[in-house]
């Protein structure tokens, strides 16, 4: 990008020209691009980039019922038909729909006292995944983008933020918010690589290099006259493609051991979590796995009888595998939705949205193991202990990854921004 001298005497200067000067003074821009947010505390940031910490983020879209999973209330007014079962941790019981995960409870940390603000999917999903920060007129990054920005991309040589999901794939720069497209997510539809990734046989490697050289020259010329965001996303996609082309082996599902395929399950959540394990083993910084269809407003109990065992099978398998491979010390695992489900059972024998009192499950880096923090009342209607919003969890997750959320800030073109909602605090009880 061309550098303009601020305050030429024959014209009024623009505010951004002074921001450029401020940015250089602060020294907070990693990579030097004008449009990306930097970090305050760059020495700290440099230290964080050395870490091998990773994240597995399992997103059950729609709202898994806490009463049919992590916080059962059998035999009560709203308890539903299912029983609670013992786990590998005395005094922690979960729904009978999670028998395999129950045997891995000694690796897990549950939080049963979430109370968040939004009972709508359309706003709630992003609000949760962005940590529901205070409104400062900017779009905060999703957790995955934030982790990649704060910890760096790592040295896997792969896109650092990958999302294994049903349906379509593609590059999602919007996840990065004000951080800039470089920190967007690469979505892998059904765990498959992006289309048209391999070089066609009719194109030689030498010709491919020439084409890329021409593309890069054209991009530089284009970018020179525009704000960086205009070309960043495009550059990022080609860089990712180049990275992925070198590791097409990652996507070959036929090389998974048959035993693992059976253990995780051949359903899409099983296949996708097995692919996620491979991504983590390859060093990908942040792996998100998405599952849809958890919004059980109707026939909730038969729905969860079908859905939860599939999650149970795959989630227990990956926890077991990460533990066996000594990866739980460096991988933070989170399994959650955008809210829970109403204790009240509606006329369609379903449960509706309930952000008032719900649960999530975690494991791994920086966390205690075999613990359940927080509680709801006897009926499971409201939180009986301290309520935790998603901002509390962001502080806690950053801390678990070695990021001091109080000591580091984003620098959004001169605007200092906290990395998590400053009205919230760590959930110390869950931290190791």
């Amino acid at each position, binding site marked *: 990008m061309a550098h303009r001298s601020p305050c030429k005497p024959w014209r009024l200067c623009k505010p951004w020209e002074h921001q450029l000067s401020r940015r250089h003074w602060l020294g907070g821009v990693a990579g030097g691009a004008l449009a990306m947010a930097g970090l305050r505390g760059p020495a700290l940031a440099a230290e964080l980039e050395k870490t091998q910490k990773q994240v597995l983020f399992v997103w059950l879209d729609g709202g898994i019922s806490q009463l049919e999973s992590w916080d059962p209330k059998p035999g009560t007014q709203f308890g539903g038909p299912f029983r609670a079962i013992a786990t590998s941790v005395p005094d922690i019981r979960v729904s*009978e729909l999670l028998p395999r995960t129950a045997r891995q409870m000694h690796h897990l940390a549950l939080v049963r006292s979430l109370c968040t603000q939004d009972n709508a999917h359309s706003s709630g999903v992003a609000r949760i995944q962005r940590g529901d920060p205070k409104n400062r007129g900017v779009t905060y990054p999703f957790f995955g983008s934030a982790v990649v920005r704060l910890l760096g991309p790592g040295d896997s040589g792969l896109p650092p933020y990958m999302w294994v999901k049903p349906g379509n794939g593609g590059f999602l720069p919007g996840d990065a918010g004000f951080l800039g497209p470089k920190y967007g997510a690469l979505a892998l539809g059904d765990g498959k690589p992006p289309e048209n990734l391999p070089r066609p046989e009719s194109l030689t490697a030498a010709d491919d290099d020439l084409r890329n050289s021409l593309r890069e020259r054209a991009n530089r010329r284009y970018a020179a006259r525009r704000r960086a965001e205009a070309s960043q996303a495009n550059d990022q996609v080609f860089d990712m493609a180049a990275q992925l082309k070198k590791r097409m082996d990652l996507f070959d599902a036929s090389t998974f051991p048959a035993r693992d395929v059976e253990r995780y399950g051949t359903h899409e959540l099983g296949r996708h979590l097995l692919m996620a394990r491979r991504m983590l083993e390859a060093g990908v910084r942040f792996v998100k796995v998405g599952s849809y269809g*958890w919004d059980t407003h109707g026939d909730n109990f038969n729905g969860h*009888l079908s*859905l939860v065992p599939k999650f149970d099978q795959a989630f227990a398998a990956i926890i077991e595998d990460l533990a066996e491979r000594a990866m739980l010390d460096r991988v933070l695992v989170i399994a959650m939705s955008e809210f829970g489900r109403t204790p009240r059972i509606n006329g369609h024998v379903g449960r509706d949205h309930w952000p008032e009192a719900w649960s999530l499950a975690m494991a791994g880096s920086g966390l205690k193991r075999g613990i359940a923090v927080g509680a709801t009342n006897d009926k499971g209607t409201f939180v009986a202990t301290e309520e935790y919003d998603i901002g509390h969890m962001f502080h806690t997750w950053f801390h678990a990854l070695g990021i001091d959320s109080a000591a580091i800030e984003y620098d959004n073109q001169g605007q200092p921004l906290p990395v998590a909602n400053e009205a919230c605090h760590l959930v110390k009880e869950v931290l190791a």
Partner: protein
Amino acid sequence: MAADPSELLKRYEPKMAKTVDLDRQMVTLRYSPCGKLLLAGDFDGMVRRWDANGEELQNLAPLAGHGGWVTALTFHGDGHRVFTSDSWGQLRAWPYAEAAPQPAWAVAQAHDGWIRAIACSPDGQNVATCGSDKQIRVWSADDGGKRHEFAAGEDVYSLAFHPSGALASGDLKGVVKHWDAAVGKCEREFDARGMYLYDRLQDVGGVRALAFDKAGTTLVCAGSQPKSGAFVQGSPLVLWFDWQSGNLKHTLKLGGENDGFVYDMSLHQDGFLMAVSSGQPGSGKLFFHSPDAEQPFFAATTMANCHALAVHPGGYRLAVSATNSSSNGNGRQLNGNKEYPGNFSPLYFWDLPQSS
């Protein structure tokens, strides 16, 4: 029977007589064979009992001791016993008319988890149960001793005995099986797979109810033709099979995709179907349908969500257990006392014309 819907309506149209609001939600509802008692299984592990002889229901001591939901109740033809089950796997037998009944016998783990249905054999010797553990088990009606068990291969939702003693089961994936219950051999299958859908990660649907006509010539299967999981959209679906040939004789797909499932049904002695359905909150129906017609000749849509149907043995009254209106909603909705209210089941009583 007259095929003209207006004639059928004139002859059989029910009139709503009264509504009784209960305090909790019910799962199942049945009149005793003598018609004097009405029993309901609820979400709280209780079997409610009422003296239904007079104008007003009189509360009787409930049958206590189940866990989870009371999922099914079936009367023995001898007029003395009722069999009840729950979602925690327990099966019990009771002398239901006593003042303070105690179980005649109980099997604490008749199934591993949700018992879906109970059926009493025509000779009164056996009670069959099925459940989400994919098992069908046959018990002595006298003492609860296990006589047979067989793996059904899938979550089994419904059971019915043929007058001959053969057993029919309907499962989650829409497969109806004809069993020789004495040896646990599946003799043949009926295709009700239209009642099943795999949507994203979820198995949706199931054959929710089965019934034979009195002569045993027809097997009626009921559920939904699902369109999606999660919210669970689908249209109530009923299939009539000729028992001897196995051929599908008649299909009723009722209403739209918000109308959900047929939850319960009974065959009138004059051959038409009486059934209740429930879908999205507010989409409940009581309907009467003759299998030689395209659409029901009677449908009531004033009850929000209908889940159970009890037919008085005298044939002059129906009771429908439903869920109250305005039963759904996201987030914190407190009542006037700033408490979080649960939903409840109104019982709707319908009088049938005396000639029916």
